């Protein structure tokens, strides 16, 4: 997979490149928005990691220009916390995913990998990880005939984790996407909720599904 990383902060760009290369991606780096647009039009990338705040041309405008030319390359937007309006604008302009800054590198890598196989998995209404199934229409979670009584928030948390099985989810993105908070809540809200969810879906089963990745976040996998 060939990926274009567009990030004006050189050091950040450099470790993102290192991390992605370490995972076997071919990586090109641009520091300016206008350069990125030229590069993306000349080379068919498999994915673009695009910062919103860029010199030359901002990320949203780069994205809009690409989509206007029917270029459907998957795009992961990076946005600073609090830039909600820019992010919404970015998603409307056709971004496939976004990651709030400061991001966890493991999560970034996982999401770039997921950019490639976007589509079918996200639209499905029944999600399945190992023997755990989640019906998003009936709002029901079930594991080997056992149904779990989940609050609305727990349900959203589980759904979020199940929509990216095997992928690490950082605390900040959980806060952003499950709680819709555009700020760091400065609490261990996520950890407490995950602990409760784990008690419900993992307790009494030999196979544990909800794992903690220390210093990073959580992952739902076999």
């Amino acid at each position, binding site marked *: 997979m060939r990926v274009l990383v567009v990030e004006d902060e050189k050091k950040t760009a450099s*470790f993102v490149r290192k991390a992605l290369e370490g995972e076997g991606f071919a990586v090109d780096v641009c520091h300016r928005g206008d350069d990125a647009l030229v590069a993306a039009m000349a080379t068919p990338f498999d994915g673009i990691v695009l910062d919103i705040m860029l010199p030359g041309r901002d990320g949203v405008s780069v994205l809009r220009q690409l989509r206007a030319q029917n270029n459907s390359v998957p795009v992961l937007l990076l946005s600073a916390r609090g830039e909600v309006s820019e992010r919404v604008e970015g998603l409307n302009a056709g971004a496939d995913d976004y990651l709030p800054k400061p991001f966890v590198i493991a999560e970034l890598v996982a999401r770039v990998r997921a950019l490639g196989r976007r589509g079918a998995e996200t639209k499905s209404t029944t999600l399945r990880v190992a023997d755990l199934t989640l019906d998003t229409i009936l709002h029901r979670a079930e594991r080997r005939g056992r149904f779990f009584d989940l609050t609305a*928030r727990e349900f959203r948390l589980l759904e979020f984790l199940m929509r990216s099985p095997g992928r690490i989810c950082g605390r900040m993105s959980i806060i952003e996407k499950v709680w819709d908070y555009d700020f760091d809540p*400065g609490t261990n809200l996520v950890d407490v909720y995950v602990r*409760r969810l784990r008690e419900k879906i993992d307790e009494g089963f030999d196979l544990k599904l909800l794992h903690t990745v*220390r*210093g990073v976040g959580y992952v739902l996998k076999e």
Partner: protein
Amino acid sequence: MKIRTRLTFWYAAILIVSLIVIGIGTYQEISEQLSHEHRKKIWKHALDETSEMILWVGLPAVILGLLGGWWITRKALAPVTKLASAVEKIHDRNLRAQLPRTGNGDELDRLTEVFNDMTVRLDDSFQRIREFTLHASHELKTPLTVMRGELEMSLRQENLALAEKERLLSQIDEIERLAKIVDGLTLLTKADAGQIKLDFEPVRLDELVRESFADTKILAQPLNIKVNLSACEEVAISGDRHRLRQLLLNLTDNAVKYNQHDGLIDISLRRLAGFAELKITNTGAGVTPEVQARVFERFYRGDASHNHLIEGCGLGLSIAEWIVAAHDGTIQFVSEMNKLTSVTVKFKFS
């Protein structure tokens, strides 16, 4: 005593002295004129005439003079009163607002001019401090992201010794904490610089409170704290939904953090005459009156020896105060040692 009263007193004294001088003069004049006719009863008659004159002409003149004096001093001092009430309204946020000048070049006009110049200089200094903190907090962000990223990269190396891994993880934890502080600081300095735009829309406060109540119950569970929603009356205000949720989370999180095992939290939202009152009360150690007076100060965390175990950056209540102020509301913190601590927020609604 007001300048005006003092001046009037002086003026009254001068008028009375001049009245006495006039009286003596009149007495002498009249006695001179009468000296040719009735030599005998001169002094009696002259005295009568004089006192009559003083009573019917002099006194009204004095009273009129006094009233005039009162009026003149009032007129003369009115600009000072106006200046004082204008100065009273000045605080660190509106230093640029100039005091109105008469423009007639008198002493008071000159004073206003000097005062205006001074507030502009003060505003410049305030502005420089604000810009400095804004830039500082912004500049700190990127190195933190880079440091975190690089530590994470080191963590991904294979055959890493366990001790080494532990060391890297603890460094990541510290960086995370630093990032939180920088985040809070950036938010507040941006707010100071007026760079945060709030999206006002009609917000059902009771819905937000209910949602926050559910989260609080979960946050409170590990400490076995009982959370009670004693009232949640339907009320809508004009506000920024994100910031109001942040406020609620800040306050309820504090109520959990500074609580005790098996403690209590009570949340209430009431619709009162013209305003909505949100009250969050919790058990816990509470704070001393000295600390209570300073809880909204940035980075102020009260008794450091007691609070160092509690996670937080010392900006939570400052942020809460800013959010409330941005909604034109009031926030009050009341704590009784080892009893109850409560935060009351009031929002006007139309």
